[in-house]
């Protein structure tokens, strides 16, 4: 990623941006986020197939935002997240510069978010074959079997909220689960409480989740919670049409369109 390092140095040196978010080598052969504030730090930037963490999760963090204008080395899922965040008024052209990394690992610098949107819209959001198969399998289960599947999967969850921390869409200053007057979602990590938390999260992400799998990758127990969001993505697609994050603000779940099928209430 010679191009990225060179460009990062220029951007920092000329003060176009105050901080650049990218990947660096972490411990145990893993990558982690790097926040480049000095030109020399840019040499630590890397990019390879291990870089799957969704860096868009950092652009809404107060600590990063406070530094000033940000730049981000963004893969396709990250760019999708950024467009969704922009449609929710969390980032804009004044505070974020996107250095896109195409699926062919080419670097593109976008002048503005509209260009990012155009680029992102070239690619459909598709659920991969392995997960699609898993969803079909779940669909074919009886209610009792499915209940058992989720109870088994979710009972080890100890609510570390790594999924929430890794998700770029979980930027709320107060999460529903932290809302305690009244405490709608139980905090203790028992089976039902876990189920309620993960269902609530999936519902809050419907029409917003861009299927980056960051939640699943972050889970220390590898619970397939991304199946819930994937199922919601598939259902939303079926009922309300193909989903693409868009700057127009025509949010999938909150905007009524005359051609919405609404089959489920007929």
């Amino acid at each position, binding site marked *: 990623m010679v191009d990225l390092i060179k460009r990062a140095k220029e951007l920092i040196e000329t003060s176009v941006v105050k901080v650049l978010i990218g990947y660096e080598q972490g411990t145990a052969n893993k990558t982690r986020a790097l926040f480049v504030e000095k030109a020399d730090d840019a040499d630590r930037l890397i990019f390879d197939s291990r870089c799957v963490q969704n860096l868009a999760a950092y652009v809404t963090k107060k600590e990063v935002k406070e530094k000033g204008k940000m730049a981000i080395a963004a893969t396709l899922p990250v760019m999708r997240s950024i467009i969704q965040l922009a449609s929710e*008024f969390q980032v804009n052209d004044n505070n974020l510069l996107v250095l896109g990394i195409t699926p062919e690992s080419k670097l593109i610098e976008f002048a503005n978010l509209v260009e990012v949107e155009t680029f992102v819209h070239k690619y459909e959001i598709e659920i991969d074959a392995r997960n699609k198969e898993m969803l079909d399998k779940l669909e074919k289960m009886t209610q009792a079997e499915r209940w058992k599947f989720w109870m088994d999967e979710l009972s080890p969850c100890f609510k570390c909220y790594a999924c929430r921390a890794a998700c770029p869409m979980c930027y709320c200053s107060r999460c*529903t689960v932290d809302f305690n007057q009244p405490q709608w979602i139980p905090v203790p990590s028992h089976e039902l409480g876990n189920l309620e938390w993960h269902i609530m999260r999936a519902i809050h992400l419907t029409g917003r989740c861009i299927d980056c799998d960051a939640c699943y990758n972050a889970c220390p127990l590898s619970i397939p919670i991304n199946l819930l969001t994937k199922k919601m993505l598939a259902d939303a697609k079926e009922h309300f049409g193909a989903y693409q994050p868009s700057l127009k603000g025509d949010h999938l779940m909150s905007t009524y369109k005359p051609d919405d099928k609404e089959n489920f209430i007929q």
Partner: protein
Amino acid sequence: MSKIGVFVCHCGENISATVDCAKVAETAGNYDGVAFSVDYKYMCSDPGQNLIKSAIKEKGLTGVVVASCSPRMHEPTFRKACAEAGLNPFMCEMANLREHCSWVHEKGEATTEKAIDLVRILVEKVKYNHSLNEIKVPVTKTALVIGGGIAGIQASLDIANTGHKVILIEKDPSIGGHMSQLSETFPTLDCSQCILTPRMVEVAQHPNITLYTYAELESLEGFIGNFKAKIRRKSKSIDEKLCTGCGQCTTKCPVKKIPSEFNEGLGKRTAIYVPFPQAVPNKPVIDRINCTYYIKGKCKVCEIVCPTKAIRFDQEDQIMEVEVGAIVIATGFTVKQPDFFPEYGYGKYPDVITGLQFERLASASGPTLGEIRRPSDDKVPEKIVFLACAGSRDPAKGIPYCSKICCMYIAKHAMLYQHKVHGGKSYVFYMDIRAGGKQYEEFVRRAIEDDGVNYVRGRVSRIYEKNGKLIVNGVDTLLNAMPVEIEADMVVLATAGIANEGAEELAQKLHISYDPYKFFAEAHPKLKPVETNTAGIFLAGACQAPRDIPESVAMASGAAVKVAGLFSQDELTREPIIAVVNRQAPPVYSSCVGCFLCVSACPYQAIEKEEIKNRNGELIKLIAKVNPGLCQGCGTCVAFCRTKSIDIQGYTHEQMYTEVMALLNEY
């Protein structure tokens, strides 16, 4: 500590027949925070209300639960009683023991247990109630009437005559609607145009009415008393101020073969046209789809012949914004076309026509000047068949309802045919004759007995053409289902009355509900027939269901009174049951993160963005803010808000949670 009063009503025997009211009152009396509990025969009666008032005063109650009927009818009664005794009316809650319990369950212990549960829920809720104040909003005393048929005309005139301003918009070039197309009207056979056109002229000349023809509603924002409507005035391609309506352009226009909408395709019109001679306003419009100039870029004959130079080819649609306080929807209906009926030839036989087309044939202003002639060859039909219920009352065709007006107009059609074609033979195939209405039955009897129309009770399975005749295969169910075959010269289908094309879209623009057939829904089928579920929007005429003229007029006058009633006040009082975005102490200010998904979810455009600034005027945070005038308290935003930053006053998260927990916890 709360001091709550519980008042259990017997509702005569409506509740006490299945619920042990004394036990409910006794049990409730033992709950924490309940200071007074009593049961009484009629809580809504004067002595019943006095019971509440004196308890509030004597026991110093801080909250009241009335366990009686649904809040729909008597919530205002009990809130008023509380207010009169000095308690904030929103500290009063109702437990619905009648509709939700006594009426739907057998007498028994379980029924009483449920009643106790219902009371307990509300006792717990009312502990979290807060005093609320009513919201006052001003009223713009101008009405918008959409649709210039007889219903829209009547509503406009009635409202205008009470001294209020009316804006009437009509999508066609002239007002008059379907009524102007009719020949004669049942049950008196007076000429439709003769009674309608004076009203049309009155509309045009009324000082309180502003008429915009060729105009449609573009969008609507706001709420009762304070609507903002955008109206699209489609380009007529003429300067209305200069045009005198002399008619030179329409006579000289070279495009003369366009099927006339007014004549239901049986006559022709030009590209620049006035729909009919009595049109109001009597000024032409250019139909840009068919005009040679707009197609090929040359012609301009009308511009050359116009003596006042009123033609404006480059005129554009105008969007006009008006502020109105109430809206009457009178957009009318349409009829199914013959191409809907495969068994009657999919509309390929020119002599199988609709009832509305027959009106044009029978009309003195129609294409045949009132003579009944076949569209195919202009011959006078010697045998004519009328088919009732073409599409209507036919669940297989997706129209299970009765179109209501057909039985009467078929009798009229058959009668007119017999009057005009002496020696002609007419047949009516019917399922039932529905002639409920003043002088309606007598009218049908006249057709059968005096004018000799042959009524055959049965349906027609097929119509096909053979040797220039239309063969009608039917059955006479009064003669033991004997097959009937008639060689007819012409067939008139009383096709089903259906909602207008675009009715659904209009309903969505207006935020009103509609039924499965896209007719607009009234607020209550019996007691609120002209109101919609959206306050300040009323219905008149056939946009709500198929209606005849007297009914449309009556509905229009009814809607007009509702509007006049609304306009008789300078301010409206609204319930404070609205959404509120929370505010907290700095540095948080609000738990709202400003994603504004609520803005797109709100069906009333009631959510705005609020800037929170520091003392130097720098923006700290952008959060959602609910406009209390616009919010209807539907709660959609509450459900959408991930951070739970929005609450409905009177139905807060805390109150809802308390209710649920009160139901789940053992007592």
